[in-house]
């Protein structure tokens, strides 16, 4: 009896030791140290980010630590920071500084996981440094919850030399756009290249673009605030216009089957004339072929009665977790990140912070980055902006829209059904309080 028991104990002890021993190899987030001497802050960072931005944040962190010896920073580099943050927050944990897209930020805010930043905004004068449209997207229920990470816009990259050779002009209406595509097709050139097989969510870009160009700013705003039905005629025409482009192969018909890299190759190798993507595309394009002559234009409005808009988005936000033991330290860090001299360094890599007091003229950024920055600034100044799905649309509607746009093109679901479902999902979003008020 004794021996039996002993054997059992030994077995279970060994098993436990083995299992706990394995735990030493994981480097998940550590709990904050709430000792009186030092505070520790944790944050996740994506390993997919460019080396430059990663180096930049690390430099910022070490500078901050030097200036604040009582605060230690723990940066975890993981491949899917957003996913991890979501999971951990849902489980009641999560890093001190929460790094996610704005839609998730809204959900977290509504669930009470985030610290309202209004007080800090006063203390650090953040409210003066950001434009109203920025603040709108980062508020929930009248309170402010996040600092914007990066501002992006959706533009059309085009092959400048090809356009010059063929005497093509930048289109200013939908009809001109179609005509341009026709001419390109006649010359065996693919008008719009695109590829989302390795990242389906890229479909969001086209969804954002088509609705912005097709509906125009005013109507899209109404749609997203529930003042217009998704089944209305204007929406129908918009989606039809898009499907029309796809059916004629003006947008690469097999986009669901090629990767974004392959799509970009088609553009830089001259097989495609245009590439609709975000301002982030500047780095990969330059990397693929530094000698490639390209420029950008804003997608013309597809309506004759609405001006062209630039769909903009905030590519994420920094927020403070309510589980953070020292939110003051976290706020201090965030403020440092946005210091003028610090934020401006990111500008060089094409990361554009929407700070209205950022003097980027002194920064030695590559010419193309400056081009994009100016483009963005100009459009923002006119106030004619479109609304990207991942910042402005409520969760369920957004997800349904980009998940099913392929099926609409291929006729697997009818446009009517697509619109009805969008309407349904929007209603659900309204009930759950997902709709952003802006």
């Amino acid at each position, binding site marked *: 009896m004794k021996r*039996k028991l002993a054997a*059992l104990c030994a*077995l*279970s002890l060994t*098993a436990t030791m083995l299992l706990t021993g394995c735990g030493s190899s994981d480097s998940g987030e550590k709990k904050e140290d709430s000792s009186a001497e030092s505070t520790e802050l944790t944050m996740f960072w994506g390993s997919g980010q460019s080396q430059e931005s990663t180096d930049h944040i690390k430099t910022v962190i070490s500078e901050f630590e030097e200036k604040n010896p009582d605060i230690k920073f723990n940066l975890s580099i993981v491949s899917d920071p957003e996913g991890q943050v*979501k999971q951990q*927050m*849902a489980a009641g944990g999560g890093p001190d500084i929460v790094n996610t897209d704005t839609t998730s930020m809204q*959900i*977290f805010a*509504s*669930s009470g996981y985030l610290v309202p930043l209004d007080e800090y905004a006063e203390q650090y004068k953040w409210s003066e440094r950001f434009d109203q449209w920025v603040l709108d997207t980062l508020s929930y229920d009248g309170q402010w919850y996040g600092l914007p990470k990066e501002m992006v816009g959706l533009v059309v990259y085009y092959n400048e030399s090809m356009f010059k050779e063929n005497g093509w002009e930048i289109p200013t209406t939908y009809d001109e756009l179609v005509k341009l595509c026709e001419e390109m097709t006649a010359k065996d050139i693919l008008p719009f290249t695109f590829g989302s*097989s390795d990242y*389906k969510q890229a479909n969001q870009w086209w969804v954002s673009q088509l609705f912005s160009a097709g509906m125009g700013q005013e109507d899209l705003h109404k749609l997203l605030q529930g003042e217009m039905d998704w089944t209305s005629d204007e929406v129908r025409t918009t989606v039809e216009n898009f499907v029309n482009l796809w059916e004629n192969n003006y947008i690469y*018909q*097999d986009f*669901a*089957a*090629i990767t974004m890299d*392959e799509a970009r190759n088609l553009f830089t190798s001259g097989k495609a004339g245009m590439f609709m993507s975000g301002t982030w595309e500047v780095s990969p394009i330059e990397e693929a072929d530094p000698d490639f002559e390209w420029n950008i234009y804003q997608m013309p409005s597809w309506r004759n009665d609405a001006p062209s808009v630039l769909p903009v988005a905030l590519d994420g936000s920094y927020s403070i977790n309510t589980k953070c033991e020292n939110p003051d330290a976290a706020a201090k860090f965030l403020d440092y990140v946005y210091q003028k001299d610090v934020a401006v360094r990111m500008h060089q890599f094409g990361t554009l912070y929407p700070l209205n007091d950022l003097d980027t003229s002194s920064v030695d950024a590559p010419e193309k980055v400056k081009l994009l920055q100016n483009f963005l600034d100009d459009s923002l100044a006119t106030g004619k902006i479109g609304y990207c799905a991942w910042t402005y649309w409520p*969760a*369920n509607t957004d*997800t349904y829209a980009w*998940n*099913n746009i*392929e*099926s609409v*093109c*291929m006729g*697997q*679901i009818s446009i009517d*059904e697509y619109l009805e479902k969008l309407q349904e999902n929007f209603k659900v979003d309204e009930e759950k309080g997902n709709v952003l008020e802006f």
Partner: protein
Amino acid sequence: MKKKVMFLNFRIRKRVLDMKQIKKTKLISKSERKRELLAWTMILPALLLNVFIMGGPIIGTFGISLTDWDGIRQASFIGLDNFKKLLQDTHFFWAALNNLKWAVFFLIVPVIFALIIAGILRKVKRGQLIYRTLFFIPYIVPSVVVAKIWTLIYSPFYGITAWLEKLGIQNPPKFLADPNISLFSVAFVDSWRYWVFLMVLFLTAFSQVDKSLEEAAMIDGANPVQTFINVTIPQIRPTISMVLILTTIWSVTTFDFVYLMTGGGPGSSSELVSTYMYRLAMQNQQPGYASAISLVMVLFSVVFMSVIGLLRKRGWEI
């Protein structure tokens, strides 16, 4: 009076029997119980580990399916609403139809290939083992690598499609891009792996076939193909039926290759119930609804197996 006596007798007899029974159980009981306790100690670790990882979660799935949980906020009980939603979900039925197509494909293509190759291979005396070993390699290669290399083969730029275009063939099939054939392109890849598994099973089954029957048929003038079809195959019917049952059950939950190669696309042409469920749970933040779908998948397997069991009991030889 008679009745009373009989009744008394009966009661006495019962008493005696009971006491004997008690004695019996009491005598054996001590060492039996000790042994049983020991046995259960041996069983428990494995059992508990599995219940913790599988048994519990299966019940958990049932629980979650009755809520509207989105993974972040608090869940609230909504009863069978998820299941009602399921019945009206055209996307789900589309995916289920794809599962059906997948199952039909798998019940035919790899099975036939396996039968043919096994039928040929069994005749080979020397080298049978070498062939078997080489054939089986695809089965042990991890699915991620298989998916990647076949994606290359299917690539519109570097693969078969491009090669056919160079040869001048117009409109070559676009395997993963054409919504009409994307599902089957992926099914083909999975069956490329799966048929060797079946082949080995058939080989083993064939080795137990009665050769004399075959020889008799050959003497009667049947050629090898006829013999194979009419004599050999019927003899391994139990194996074949087991294979068909297994294939059907596995086709309900197949996931890996569709997820790795097309993600359910283009559109929803290759969407399976499992990929739909996965997306709902992980990306669309609807684990409650996704759990309802999981349960339906389990239900299907359970019902299917029960039907088979029932038919077998009735004498059907499946």
